[in-house]
């Protein structure tokens, strides 16, 4: 049976988390802060995560261009308990990933980039 686009995107997010166990949760959101597809834990409020992802990405893009760093590739947030990494999916969406404190970031970045390419085809 053919899957809807949302189902395909959720499957791709779950794939990402299975392939890279350092990634604990992930979501794709629109640039205006609405959820497109998510694989987030039930205690995370996805509406807030999506709005915050859009706000953070837009500020990241502004500061990158304002300070002459060119087109934004990703925004990376490191907290005491792990990482939040945002990366643009084409012009219309953002991939947000939560990763463990001891995550192997090279692998996380690589898999995020591949996933982002797949999502930009799906959107």
């Amino acid at each position, binding site marked *: 049976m053919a899957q809807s686009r949302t189902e395909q995107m959720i499957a791709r997010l779950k794939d990402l988390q299975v392939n890279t166990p350092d990634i604990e949760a992930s979501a794709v959101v*629109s*640039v*205006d*802060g*609405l959820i497109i597809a998510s694989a987030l834990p039930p205690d995370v409020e996805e*509406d*807030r995560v*999506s*709005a*915050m992802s*859009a*706000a*953070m990405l*837009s*500020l990241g893009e*502004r500061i990158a261009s*304002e300070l002459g760093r060119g087109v934004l590739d990703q925004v990376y947030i490191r907290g005491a308990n792990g990482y939040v990494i945002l990366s643009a999916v084409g*012009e*219309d969406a953002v991939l947000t990933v939560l990763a463990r404190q001891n995550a192997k970031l090279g692998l996380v970045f690589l898999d995020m980039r591949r996933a982002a390419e797949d999502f930009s085809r799906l959107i």
Partner: protein
Amino acid sequence: MQTVKMVVTGPFSAGKTAFIQSVSEIDVVSTERKITDATSRVKKETTVAMDFGRITVDDDLVLYLFGTPGQKRFDFMWEILSEGMLGFIVLVDSVRPETFREARRILDVFRHYADTPYVVAANKQDLEDAWPPEDLRIALKVSPDVKILPCVATDKESVKNVLLELLYTILEKTPPEEE
């Protein structure tokens, strides 16, 4: 040099970004993104984080203007932007009564953040079916001691007038600091 931080808030599509763009002397730091839901019928782009503009009043006084996103899902930005504000402006779209209730709610949220002076700006007064400011006062249940000012956010002089009125209110209510 004294700097005064003001926040420009109000419902979705009230004209907050235009308000700051009309008057800022620097290139406004804006974060507009393409709208992807049904509200794209109202307009094509919306602010997702903040607007930032600056106006020099004179040698001793500079206004910093921070504009908020309008939709409730961005209310975490409202809280961040309201930190340290000395006053705020609630911008209302005078031709869209369906947004008045939301405007009132936003007004209450910001009053709760900080007990600072504020004014209400009745935007889009250049349109024929705009509600007059005093009718808006009744609709929004704004107390008589709060200024409701007519405004056209795309007109620099009109925006300046709103900012100066808020500035006077701030100066009246804030005792001057000891040198």
